[in-house]
């Protein structure tokens, strides 16, 4: 926090709503931080001498004669190597009982990387999960969310991915995490002996929701320090971005802005883009990869939050329970990694793109066969075979408990193709069929 020299104190509060306080003040900068009776707040509007503050902890109990102290600047984080291994709240204050951090003070939510200085992402991130590595390959510098219903084990999958990815630092931005989930992350990271390369900024369900709005920027400011200053590869985990967006709508609705779809602010796209676009491959080797969670309600991806997210991120990983095999799978239809083209068949075996597409196409045939079956029609021999394939494919490849290397995923898929189909049914380039086809009974 800034030193006393910058502080200006006012007491003339003119208006209080659930999330905002307005007062008469001068010499205040847009976006500046303030405290109201120790509560943090930020300037969101100035008209003449009337300044409106968004109060992160909510305005309960704030009296009209409260003391408002302006702190001279936007929210900041102290960055240095001391961040590693530490747990912080949304304001960047330690919550692990450890000492305060020494370091350079940086404003959070800083400027964007000049697009011409970016490098094209090209490092494959292997997770061992075939639903990801085979069908939706991740690349460092990418930004991608899990789309999942609230009852799915997304935090577990994300923790697995984070630990298997070879990142120099893992930064967790937790928004509205339950205390149990917070402890879960702490424990898996600890068990993996990875705590020293993890940094966490956590807002739990016990903290005021508006505080969440600071979490992504805090996490990404720390990420930029390690990626830009230290040329490290940094993986940022943001969970749950739906709760972040909900907090945005709380603030904007209380500021009487006209809501757009699903009572979200009209600026939702820009607000989310500002966060996700921090993912980058830097010219000097550092990178920031963002893996996020966007929880859905009832699998509805047309809701404004997943919809805007999908337009921003480089794909999405859609988790779904497959009752046929009793497992959670990465759904190949709605999932997509937009950066996979940069690595598959280049950093992986050259049959990768064709095998991947062929298997998904055949899986789609199985879906059609299932519809037929459900409508009570006779199934052809091909239908039966595609259904049998789908079952194998789902449990051996798509399930999130799979943990194998990429070559093995490819071999395994060829095996399944050979087991259930004829060569001419798979529509793969002949040169690959010649090399990899395995006839089976």
């Amino acid at each position, binding site marked *: 926090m800034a030193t006393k020299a910058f502080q200006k104190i006012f007491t003339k509060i003119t208006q209080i709503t659930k999330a905002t306080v307005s007062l008469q003040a001068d010499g205040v900068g847009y976006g500046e931080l303030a405290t109201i009776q120790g509560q943090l707040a930020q300037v969101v509007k100035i008209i003449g001498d009337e300044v409106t503050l968004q109060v992160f902890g909510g305005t309960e109990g704030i009296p009209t004669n409260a003391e408002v102290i302006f702190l001279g600047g936007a929210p900041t984080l102290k960055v240095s190597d001391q961040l590693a291994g530490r747990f912080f709240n949304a304001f960047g204050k330690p919550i692990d009982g450890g000492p305060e951090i020494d370091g350079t003070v940086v404003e959070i939510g800083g400027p964007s*990387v000049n697009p011409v200085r970016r490098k094209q992402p090209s490092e494959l991130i292997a997770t061992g999960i075939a639903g990801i590595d085979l069908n939706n390959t991740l690349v460092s510098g990418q930004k991608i969310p899990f789309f999942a219903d609230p009852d799915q084990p997304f935090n577990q999958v994300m923790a697995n991915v984070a630990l298997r990815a070879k990142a120099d630092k893992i930064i967790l931005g937790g928004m509205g995490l339950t205390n149990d989930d917070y402890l879960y992350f702490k424990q898996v990271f600890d068990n993996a002996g990875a705590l020293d390369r993890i940094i966490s900024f956590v807002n739990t369900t016990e903290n005021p929701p508006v505080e969440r709005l600071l979490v992504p920027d805090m996490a990404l400011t720390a990420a930029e320090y390690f990626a830009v200053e230290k040329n490290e590869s940094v993986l940022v985990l943001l969970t749950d971005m739906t709760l972040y967006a909900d907090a945005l709508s709380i603030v904007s609705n209380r500021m009487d802005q006209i809501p757009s779809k699903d009572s979200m602010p009209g600026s939702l796209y820009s607000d989310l883009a500002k966060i996700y676009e921090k993912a980058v491959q830097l010219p000097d080797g550092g990178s920031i990869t963002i893996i996020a969670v966007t929880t859905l309600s009832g699998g509805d991806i047309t809701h404004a939050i997943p919809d805007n997210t999908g337009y*921003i991120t480089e794909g*999405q990983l859609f988790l779904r329970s497959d009752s046929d095999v009793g497992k959670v799978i990465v759904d190949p239809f709605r999932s997509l990694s937009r950066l996979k083209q940069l690595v598959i068949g280049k950093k992986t075996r050259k049959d990768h793109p064709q095998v991947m597409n062929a298997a998904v*196409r055949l899986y789609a045939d199985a879906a059609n066969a299932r519809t037929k079956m459900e409508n009570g029609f*006779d199934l052809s021999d091909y239908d039966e075979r595609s259904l049998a394939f789908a079952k194998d494919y789902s449990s051996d490849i798509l399930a999130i408990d799979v943990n194998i290397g990429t070559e093995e995923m490819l071999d395994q898929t060829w095996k399944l193709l050979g087991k259930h189909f004829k060569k001419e049914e798979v529509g793969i380039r002949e040169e690959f069929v010649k090399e990899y086809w395995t006839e089976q009974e």
Partner: protein
Amino acid sequence: MHMAAKGKVVGIISNLVVVEATDAVAQNEICFIKVDDEQLMAEVIKVIGKSVYVQVFESTRGMKIGNDVEFAGHMLEVTLGPGILSKNYDGLQNDLDKMEGVFLKRGDYTFPLDHDKEWDFKPLAKPGDTVQAGSWLGEVDENFQPHKIMVPFVFEGTYTVKSVTEAGKYKIADTMAILVNSKGEEIPVTMMQKWPVKKAITAYKEKPRPFKLLETGVRTIDTINPIVEGGTGFIPGPFGTGKTVLQHAISKQAEADIVVIAACGERANEVVEIFTEFPELVDPHTGRKLTERTTIIANTSNMPVAAREASVYTAMTISEYYRSMGLRVLMMADSTSRWAQALREMSNRLEELPGPDAFPMDLPAIISNFYARAGYVYLNNGKPGSITFIGTVSPAGGNLKEPVTESTKKAARCFYALQQSRADGKRYPAINPIESYSKYLEYPEFEEYIAERINDQWLGKINEMKTLLQRGLEVSEQINILGDDGVSVDYHVRFWKSEVIDFVILQQDAFDSIDAVTSLERQEYMVNKVMDLCHMEYTFDSFAEVGPYFKRVINLLRQMNYSEFKSEKFYNYEKELKETLTEVTV
């Protein structure tokens, strides 16, 4: 314009700032707001009494009441001259490569051209010639394009050429000609000029209906719903259905002289892809590097929102500049919805009465005025020039009944609707062949042109193909209701014929070096092949034989698509196909 006013900041709501001005200001005038030692550019968007509302093209963090404002006396304008090609600009035409450091700095504005570069000039006009705005005075070679040095577009009326500088090497600020106006005053002209982006450049004689096919190499466009030089089109689709991939494919492959790409509020990595690939890839029509003909306006989603709106206008003005040189310009904007959203954000801050989905009421007019700036023209010297414009639209929730899609549908003549289910089934490009359309197919001018370019049977054949696709869809719906054995074997054949068209003509792998771009000659060849096959009579004993058989046929045709045209491999597959066809045809 007028004496530039000064002012002070009296209100700040995000990037909407209220300024009290000392003198007259104009709507859309540019001003600069001083915040500490930075000058932040802004544009006047509304004036009420003494209060001037400006949208700031930067973050307003740290701005204070009382900050000084200086008005510039002109609207938002671009600088036009040789050196625009191969440049990477932001939405306000700042040269991104000239900026220092990895991060963008607020208030860092860079000159869009190069003062020191020398250009090889050749005069075109002679002393005594009568000229007007847009007349060609000379030309320089810009990346192998004849870049015309023109009478600035702001010049009104006619002028007489007093002198044109002789051939040689010159810089952009050198005087290239001296013109004399009706009052006898001498006016020097350099290689550079400025133009306000929100005004259309209309230095042409007439704007006829466009009629010439613009070859894109994308089969489902060129063959099924062609776009023309000077035409307009739009690509709506939910996220992930292939808007950007399709636009990139078109900008790589289309037979255009100049390509202007506006990356408007979308992902930075997609622009990086262009930065990385275009210097390596070659223009299939000229063999030269793609970067040489391309200019990129990058205002990605994390860059200032207000500059998003500017970015599409900047791109359009640059396109109009090159069209005035008699060139074929292709302009792409991805995505026009982000521009509309920027308008919505500002309109909401201004507390204007909202239209549908909280977009501004005049959104339809803004969109149609913009699309109207594209087109095929005859310049005042009789030479043709064109701007073909294709925008993407990102409908919220994938629902095409939303204001941006609906407004664009009224403005654009080609509709390429991307379909979620096609994308899910990896049937790329996911353009729905039945709902999409090209109005140009109805133009007699186009019919005449295509009869000349391909043959007079062509359009008939394409119509028949569309009918077969439609029939195939109907049959598949019936099979879904009645079951495989609830319809006759003929129906199955009908369905599979439409699948052949889908898999071989419509589907195209944008990431396969051979399949990605299909010449018109090759498109014709494959259409003939597929239609011949559709005209054959097939005999099957049961419906169960139909699918497996046609899968083999499709497989062979696809192998042909993946092979070099008319190569040995290509002919081998063709031969195999012929043999396969004799098995069951009568």
